[in-house]
């Protein structure tokens, strides 16, 4: 479903590549955790899948299409097959829950009728039945994220990308959100979740891909946040709090990587 062949991405103003020679394949229907510190390349990975950025070198294939050869006017069609969820939810504050979800269908030109049918169904799926008339600020963080997930999957995309979806949520809510993603995965959607929430990763026992400084250092099935297998590269002490910053202690962009949650690249 997603295939990276020796992909390197260097942003214009930086010398160090955000992704460096990444080879990775995610099959249809898989659930993958993408872990690593801030600045390790998780967000860049997601942006490349969405073709928000082009790889500096190497080939990115998504849903059978080589993104290098995908002309810009076909990019919207690619994105209709991919749902995205972010740490900061990105809901439209002036629109109700229903309108926020419907918006995703309106802007791709769906008919009123199909919108009216699809939105309540997906709201029920994410556990928000009866809350369609609420405004985002009237909802809890977890509920807001459910709205964002509903919006991401209302068009039944083949792939769901989640960029630190639990970064703003408490552990219990986070687990609920992850269970929801798992349920969506169970319906056949490929899910890639970038996170540094170790509890979640440990409890789910899914495939874990770990990035350090733009390299894939670990790719385990049924892995935990902290590797149980022999690491590809000798890792430093991994037992520090949250684990998020443990793999790297090199400052990125001048700030220490130990600060968590920024959702940087």
């Amino acid at each position, binding site marked *: 479903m997603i295939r990276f062949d020796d992909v390197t991405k260097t942003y214009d103003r930086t010398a160090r590549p955000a992704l460096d020679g990444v080879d990775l394949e995610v099959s249809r229907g898989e659930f993958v955790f993408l872990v690593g510190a801030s600045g390790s390349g998780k967000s860049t990975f997601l942006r490349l899948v969405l073709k928000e950025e082009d790889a500096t070198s190497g080939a990115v294939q998504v849903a059978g299409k080589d993104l290098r050869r995908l002309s810009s006017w076909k990019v919207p069609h690619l994105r209709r097959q991919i749902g995205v969820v972010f740490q900061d939810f990105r809901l439209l504050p002036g629109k109700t829950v229903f309108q926020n979800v419907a*918006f995703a269908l309106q802007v*791709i*030109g769906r008919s009123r009728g199909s919108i009216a049918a699809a939105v309540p169904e997906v709201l029920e799926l994410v556990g928000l039945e009866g809350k369609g008339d609420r405004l985002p600020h009237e909802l809890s963080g977890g509920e807001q994220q459910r709205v964002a997930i509903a919006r991401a999957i209302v068009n039944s995309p083949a792939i769901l990308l989640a960029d630190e979806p639990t970064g703003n949520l408490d552990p219990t809510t986070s687990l609920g959100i992850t269970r929801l993603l798992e349920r969506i995965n169970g319906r056949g959607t490929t899910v890639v979740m970038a996170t540094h929430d170790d509890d979640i990763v440990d409890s789910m026992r899914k495939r874990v891909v770990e990035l350090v400084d733009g390299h894939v250092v670990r790719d385990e099935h049924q892995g935990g946040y902290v590797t149980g297998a022999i690491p590809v590269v000798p890792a430093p002490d991994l037992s520090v709090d949250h684990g998020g910053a443990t793999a790297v202690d090199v400052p990125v962009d001048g700030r220490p990587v130990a600060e968590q949650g920024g959702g940087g690249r």
Partner: protein
Amino acid sequence: MLSEIGIGLRRNLAMTISVVLVTFVSLTFVGAGALMQQQVSTMKGDWYDRVQVAIFLCTQDSLSASCSGAATDADKAAIEQALASPPLSQYVSEVEFETSDEAYAQFQQQDAELSASVTPDQLPESFRVGLEDPERFGVISESFQGSPGVEQVVDQREVLEPFFAVLNAATAGSLALAGVMLVAAVLLIGTTIRLAAFNRRRETGIMRLVGASSTFLQLPFLLEGVIAVCLGAGMAGAVLLLAVDRGVTGWLAEQVPAFDYITTTDVWATIPWLFVGGIVLASVASLVSLSRYLKV
């Protein structure tokens, strides 16, 4: 989508108003320039065709050296003969003879008050000579100036030249102003769209992520620009209509009735072009700035 456009226009009200006003002013100048040019060509066509060279004959009161009393029939016959035969005939397309009575009748028509103070026999008879090439006026002038019975040879275009010069200068001036204003309009539309895109980056960000096509993404912004420009064009059209109706038809044509003037019909014919020009302008400005600030 219409409601989105409305929201966008209102949210950006000050900028929208400035776009409307700048396009209004610039298109008014464009329209005024176009109408003045139309006026010039109407007059030129009218006057150049009608009369080009007038050979005024002596009247009994003439003081010119070549005159000794009114021109005789023999003088007239000689002039007519000269015009009809080579070498002059090749330059001449038509010759009309205007009698004093005809001249008086035309004078009366143009200015009844002034014509009351003269009698028909005070007005000179004349040959009105149409030329194949209006520029060859000199040939006729040289041939007849000073001939017996000829008081004066006048290229009537010369009478009109200063008038046309003023109109042409006014046209050039208003088009130059229009050009400056149009540059301002383009930049302003670009900036407005950039601001609007920035104001709505949350919406457009989501639209991009869920796979809205670039048309769907950019069209509201484009339409906002087009609507603002159309408002400006409509205002410009209204002002031009008013100016021509009150200023030209209602005033100038009464004060100086000798000429044909443009009417509101000409303005109505110009207005669609103001809209077309404005829309093209807005679209180009929008697309340029959208391609920079609203990529898919």
